[in-house]
């Protein structure tokens, strides 16, 4: 998937917006506001949810029972959002999320997906050879650990709950949130102290 867009696409967009604006179907103000909303999204909410689940058993229970309610409890705006499934990593099971058909991703919690998540290479290979893909992320999952790849085909979104690393006993929730990477919540990474 080539990026950035070709020169022809660049010119096409401005003409399209101009035509739609003169027809009253869209306005520059609306486009600016939409852009501002997408720019505000980041993986921070997801990281705070994971850190809270690691430290608060009640929150952990809520997260596993009702992911959307747990996200809302953390201040995420989930009205209108798809349901949220939480996939808990354990020593015997590692989860990995992909959307082979396009780009479904828990945007409300993780912001906009990185380029590789939408790439043909990731979409085609994650289901077929997850261990080879993870190795390209520098992640080598023990042969005894099962990998569960989740192909997001429906309007369900998935968040991986990574394992809390050893050596983080006594850390504050804020410190813990700082080591929860976006990739750890997709499954292409793990949290490390």
């Amino acid at each position, binding site marked *: 998937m*080539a990026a950035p867009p070709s020169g022809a696409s660049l010119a096409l967009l401005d003409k*399209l917006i101009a035509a739609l604006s003169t027809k009253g179907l869209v306005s520059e103000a609306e486009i600016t506001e939409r*852009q501002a*909303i997408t720019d505000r999204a980041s993986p921070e909410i997801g990281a705070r949810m994971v850190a809270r689940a690691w430290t608060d058993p009640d929150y952990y229970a809520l997260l596993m029972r009702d992911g959307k309610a747990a996200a809302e409890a953390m201040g995420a705006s989930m009205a209108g959002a798809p349901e949220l499934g939480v996939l808990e990593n354990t020593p015997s099971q590692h989860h990995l999320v992909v959307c*082979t058909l396009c780009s479904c991703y828990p945007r409300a919690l993780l912001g906009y997906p990185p380029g590789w998540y939408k790439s043909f290479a990731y979409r085609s*290979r994650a*289901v077929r050879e997850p261990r080879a893909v993870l190795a390209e992320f520098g992640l080598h999952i023990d042969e005894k650990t*099962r990998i569960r790849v989740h192909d997001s085909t*429906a309007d369900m979104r998935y968040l991986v709950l990574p394992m809390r690393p050893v050596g983080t006993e006594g850390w504050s929730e804020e410190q813990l949130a700082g080591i929860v990477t976006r990739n750890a919540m997709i499954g292409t990474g793990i949290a490390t102290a």
Partner: protein
Amino acid sequence: MNGPHDMGGFTGFGPVLHEYDEPVWHDGWEPRAFALVLAMGMTGSWNIDEARHARERLPAMQYWRSSYYEMRHFALILQLIELGLITAMEEEQGRMAVPAKPVKRVAKAEMIPAILASGGPADRPSKQPQGFFVGDKVCTRTINPCGHTRLPRYARGKEGEVVTVHGTHVLPDSNAHGVGENPQWLYTVRFTAMDLWGKDTKDAVCIDLWEPYLEALA
């Protein structure tokens, strides 16, 4: 349909490339193009399944040549032209040639958060009896529809096990074609790497599938 979007299992796209700082946008064009996709979605002229189906109906070579946001942009143009919201000439010349067709709404900037909050998830009540339960062995149907489906090619005609029941959800195969939401039971079905790829590992793929995609395994 067996479109260019259905990528699971393909080979030939090379390694998964990581960028050093992984910017969300690679060019000012991308957020602007995507904001337009989202803004036009707010006119209420199509549902999410119709939008997905537009992307997969792009000519295969165009889909594969495009960047992600170009692909979204080209699918938007396809929908706008099909619905008569814009003509090809208007799009080329950047001006109005025929008056706009009415749309459900044109969002003002300040209305956007409320509209976003009102957009529905896909779960819907249904009187359909639940056909499968956790632990049931199922087989996916071997289908090759011309229209929209969310049953990926790599998972057709495969045996799996129901691991989660999600309630009843809008069936994309109906909703993408203007024939109603037709809510059906949605399940997560687990398939072993052996059954999908002939690979002898403990790994598996879990896929969310609607009841009409499945039959009971005797």
